[in-house]
């Protein structure tokens, strides 16, 4: 116990070097933990985003791409599904329910989803949790919108607030549907999924916005249709972006998937969310592992930095060692002193690293959530993270034996004579 006090006081005496060493270790620990946390949280949050959906159907492209844009609202669809194809598939006998999804518009950076009432009744996330309303009710009117919890919080919207949708999915849009404003009819309870950051309107609403558009541009002059005029028109959609399917029996999944993939009307693709997620992981795992490896190397660099700092200090500390020997410290006391010093540095580095991680998490959380739909809770270190930290501590213990052994040898050779 007294040795630990001595070690700490000795470190305090060299506090600039010690602080720098701790800082280097802390930053490397923060990096390693961030990578590990983003990795595991990304998995957890991705896996809990969709539940209960047996198949996702979209225009033929890659399964990962379809999964990303239909569920995670990342990237864009290359093509649409015709409305009649949707009708054909959703009425297959094996299909219990179908949720149409129409993407392409946005409001201040939040994506707009055209869908129907089935979204609120059949969509599941997490462990089979349904959507629930914090306020208000599903859209009923043509110009009603249901917003996610984050939108309500961040933009301060309430039931009754009017909002103008914009064409395209970017945060800044040059073409707004200012002539046909929507009104918030309901706010969904927080889900921790991309649903929180989506604006849900009816398919007819989406259709009404674009009913007078020609060649991707708003109509001018005679072709213009006002919001009220649009109500009189037939607003049956011509196309949607994707659809989520729930089947009566899970065992039919493969059969329906084959049917969709061989659909004669147009080239379509049906994917099982779980399988596509696995595909995504295997795609990402190489990069994940590389990142983890690189950050482990950074930690090692930090520890080697500590090693060289301690080794470098040994020569100027031979006097200190000789004094300790003269008052009765045994060589193994000197050895332990240096090991304790290294452990103190590593432990301080780890604690500071954890602190930095949580500070960084606090700062990066909104950005991660907004830009990448990644929800990072302020959780205690997970067992996997604790294992990493323990490994760092163990590595520093092993590395510390190098200067400690050298000091031990010096202590034996120098004895009580004071060198330098």
């Amino acid at each position, binding site marked *: 116990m007294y040795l630990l006090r*001595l070690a700490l006081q*000795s470190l305090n*005496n060299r506090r600039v070097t010690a602080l720098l060493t701790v800082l280097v270790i802390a930053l490397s620990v923060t990096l390693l933990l961030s990578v590990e946390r983003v990795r595991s949280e990304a998995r957890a949050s991705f896996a809990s985003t969709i539940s209960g959906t047996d198949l996702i159907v979209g225009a033929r492209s890659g399964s990962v791409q379809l999964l990303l844009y239909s569920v995670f609202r990342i990237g864009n669809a290359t093509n649409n599904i015709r409305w009649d194809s949707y009708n054909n598939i959703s009425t297959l006998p094996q299909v219990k329910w179908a949720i149409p999804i129409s993407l392409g518009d946005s409001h201040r950076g939040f994506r707009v989803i055209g869908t129907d009432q089935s979204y609120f009744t059949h969509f599941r996330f997490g462990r089979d949790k349904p959507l629930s309303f914090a306020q208000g009710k599903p859209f009923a009117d043509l110009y009603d919108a249901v917003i996610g919890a984050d939108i309500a919080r961040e933009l301060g919207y309430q039931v009754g607030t009017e909002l103008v949708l914009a064409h395209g999915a970017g945060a800044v849009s040059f073409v707004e549907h200012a002539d046909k404003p929507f009104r918030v009819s309901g706010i969904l309870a927080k889900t921790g999924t991309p649903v929180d950051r989506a604006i849900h309107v009816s398919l007819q609403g989406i259709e009404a916005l674009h009913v007078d558009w020609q060649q991707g541009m708003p109509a001018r002059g005679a072709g213009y249709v006002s919001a009220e005029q649009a109500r009189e028109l037939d607003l049956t959609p011509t196309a949607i972006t994707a659809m989520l399917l729930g089947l009566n029996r899970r065992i039919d999944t493969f059969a329906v998937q084959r049917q969709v993939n061989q659909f004669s009307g147009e080239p379509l693709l049906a994917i099982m969310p779980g399988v596509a997620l696995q595909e995504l992981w295997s795609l990402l795992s190489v990069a994940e592992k590389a990142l983890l490896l690189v950050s482990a190397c950074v930690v090692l660099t930090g520890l080697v930095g500590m090693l060289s700092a301690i080794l470098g200090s040994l020569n100027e500390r031979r006097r200190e060692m000789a004094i300790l020997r*003269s008052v009765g410290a045994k060589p193994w006391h000197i050895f332990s002193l240096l090991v304790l010093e290294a452990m103190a540095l590593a432990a301080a580095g780890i604690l500071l690293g954890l602190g930095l991680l949580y500070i960084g998490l606090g700062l990066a959380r909104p950005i991660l959530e907004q830009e990448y739909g990644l929800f990072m809770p302020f959780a205690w270190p997970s067992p996997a993270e604790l294992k990493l930290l323990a490994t760092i501590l163990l590595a520093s213990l092993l590395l510390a034996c190098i200067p400690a052994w050298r000091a031990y040898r010096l202590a034996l050779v120098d*004895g009580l*004579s004071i060198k330098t």
Partner: protein
Amino acid sequence: MTSPLLELNELRFAWPQQPVLLDIAHFRLQAGERLFLKGPSGSGKTTLLGLLGGVHLPQQGEVTLLGQSLASLSARQRDRFRAEHTGYIFQMFNLLPYLSVQDNVLLPCRFSARRKDRALQRHGNLEAAAAHLLNGLGLSDPALLRRPATALSIGQQQRVAAARALIGNPELVIADEPTSALDADSREAFLQLLFAECSEAGSSLLFVSHDTALAPLFDRSLALPELNRATHLEAL
């Protein structure tokens, strides 16, 4: 006559691959004696102190402290034996810069249970033991105890080192040029204080220095080059 506190017999020592550095036929120090050992630099003085402390072992002959042959002890036992029975004062920078004056004085008590027990026996608690010694050595300001060792003057630091060597009443105090950094007046004053405290603690003092002006103050004085037959050979 009582057996000597410290005795060297037919001691020969050489560093590996080097000629014999020390060859001492006989040397003894009585209990309570204050001995001046004249040792110019390069005379093997530091090595001799290492041998007396049991840090090194001679190739021939033996060092006996308190009737105990150091060679018959293991390295760990020698370390312990040294800590329990010997206090050291070095030339300069004796103190650990990161400890307070009090913690520096108490260092031997952290590593030797016997010295700690003795200090406790006499003074009740370690702080009182340290304060008593420092007081005897002219460092009576209680505020001084908490100050870092580096905040003191060289003369004060050497007195703190003396207090550290004496705490827990070791039988032997070995001082290696402790006054070399002090001016003439402070040297004598320091020695007087050291003598007084050694008497009070009942410790013998082996004082190694090249400054013969101090020799008359001691009970006895010896010159290492005369004691050491190896240097005679080399001189020839």
